[in-house]
């Protein structure tokens, strides 16, 4: 098969379809750049979708738990190795993604006789100046984009992801209240989960009741990279209690 370009292309395309099919039921995750920090939100089972990577770095992902774990460990290893051999200030998302994670994911995706990573993810890097904050959307095939808008969505499929991102960026423009922002993100989560449209979305009340009902037995994972914290490790967990989830 390797000697025949057409069959190789077909195999890669089949692989792409297979990954998207496997990710279909994945629960979307969200990242928002704010003046005081970066917010990462997901609905999971606790320590399952949002993770601290390093002092100013965090990860939010959807996909197979084993694959999330592999990527998370690789990112943590690389970040700590860099910090120890150079300095914590030298750990950068550009290097971590561009020279570490992305090439590995691409190689793995194109090795058509090995199992692909079933993962879609978002990585965040906090800076002292909010203008320098980074959100990077990294895909299962190793391709990545640096976010140019405050809100970035991680979905299983590109179309609903893009629609949710556009809707959220419009809804959250200029807003800084974290509770309000989390509520809106969860409304978008419910709309995506129910495969409803963002062009004519259900009413706000329906969306809010929807996510509250859907998250009853699940854990709201809220990670916050706090710009105001004085210690090196800026990642903190925010409680989802006030939102009525665990």
């Amino acid at each position, binding site marked *: 098969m390797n000697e025949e370009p057409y069959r190789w292309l077909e195999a890669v395309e089949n692989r792409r379809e297979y990954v998207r099919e496997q990710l279909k039921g994945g629960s979307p995750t969200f990242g928002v750049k704010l003046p005081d920090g970066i917010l990462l939100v997901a609905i999971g089972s606790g320590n399952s979708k949002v993770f601290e990577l390093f002092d100013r770095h965090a990860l939010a992902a959807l996909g197979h738990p084993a694959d999330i774990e592999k990527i998370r460990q690789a990112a*943590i290893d690389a970040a700590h190795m860099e910090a120890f051999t150079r300095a914590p200030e030298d750990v950068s998302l550009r290097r971590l993604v561009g020279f570490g994670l992305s090439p590995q994911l691409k190689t793995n995706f194109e090795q058509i006789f090995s199992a692909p990573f079933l993962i879609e993810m978002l990585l965040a890097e906090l800076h002292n100046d909010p203008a320098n904050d980074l959100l990077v959307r990294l895909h299962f095939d190793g391709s990545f984009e640096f976010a140019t808008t405050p809100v970035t969505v991680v979905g299983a499929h590109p179309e609903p992801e893009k629609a949710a991102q556009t809707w959220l960026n419009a809804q959250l423009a200029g807003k800084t209240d974290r509770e309000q922002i989390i509520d809106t993100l969860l409304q978008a989560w419910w709309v995506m989960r129910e495969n409803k449209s963002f062009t004519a979305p259900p009413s706000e009340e329906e969306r809010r009741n929807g996510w509250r009902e859907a998250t009853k037995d699940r854990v709201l994972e809220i990670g916050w990279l706090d710009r105001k914290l004085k*210690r090196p490790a800026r990642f903190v967990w925010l409680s989802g209690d006030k939102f009525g989830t665990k």
Partner: protein
Amino acid sequence: MTEQIAGDFLSLLASRQLPVLSAERAFTAHNASPNAPVQTQATTVFAFHYKDGVLMGGDRRATAGNIIVTDKVDKVIDIDATSILAIAGVPATAFEMARVMQTSFEYYRRSQLQNLSLPAKVRALARLLRENLPMTMQGVGVVVPLFAGLDTQTNPPQPLIFFYDPLGAQFQAVGYAASGSGSGSIRSILSYQEKYGSPKPSEMNLQQAVQFTLRLLMTASEFDAATGGINPETNTYATIKILDADGVRTISAEEQSGFLKAK
């Protein structure tokens, strides 16, 4: 004359016919090989239990022989959100130990999604000291640190103090611990205050504990040239950190100045 206690580090040196590291000489360059460079060292660091947790303080002077290298060294270092290290001895080795601990504790917490236990943290420092034994024996890398960490197995979490010998033996301090060339006088005062003082260190509130700390350092600097003490006129204060159930907090120079002036 150094007291010999069977099985301790000093007895080991004596049995090998090696120069004995006395409490005073351990923090001077007298034990070093004649070819060894002059070391930057000497210190007074200590920790004691006060009413709300543990306070760890240290002077900020580094010396090399009779030269004062700087009066701006931080010898009390945050290792992570729930542990602090106070270093006495050779900074080159001690700072590297702190860096190894910072990286490995945080790496464990992030990768395993749980904090490293306090016994494991205490042993990690013991292992680093043991691995440093060749340098200690050569007299060019002796480190005798203090460590404070939060025991999360108790409810509420309890801050504990540990001290070490240069070989890596670890001991839990009941009320206080001190290390460095100026620690002799500090230990005497702490012992006196604990037995006869009012309030005892363990009964002091934060303001009293910080005041007591600054006075301890001023006293130590009167008897030990290698201890910097504090100087309010030049805004030179100590490094003071507190550890309580909420974690580590640094007492800034401004706060220390305020506490010192308070009645």
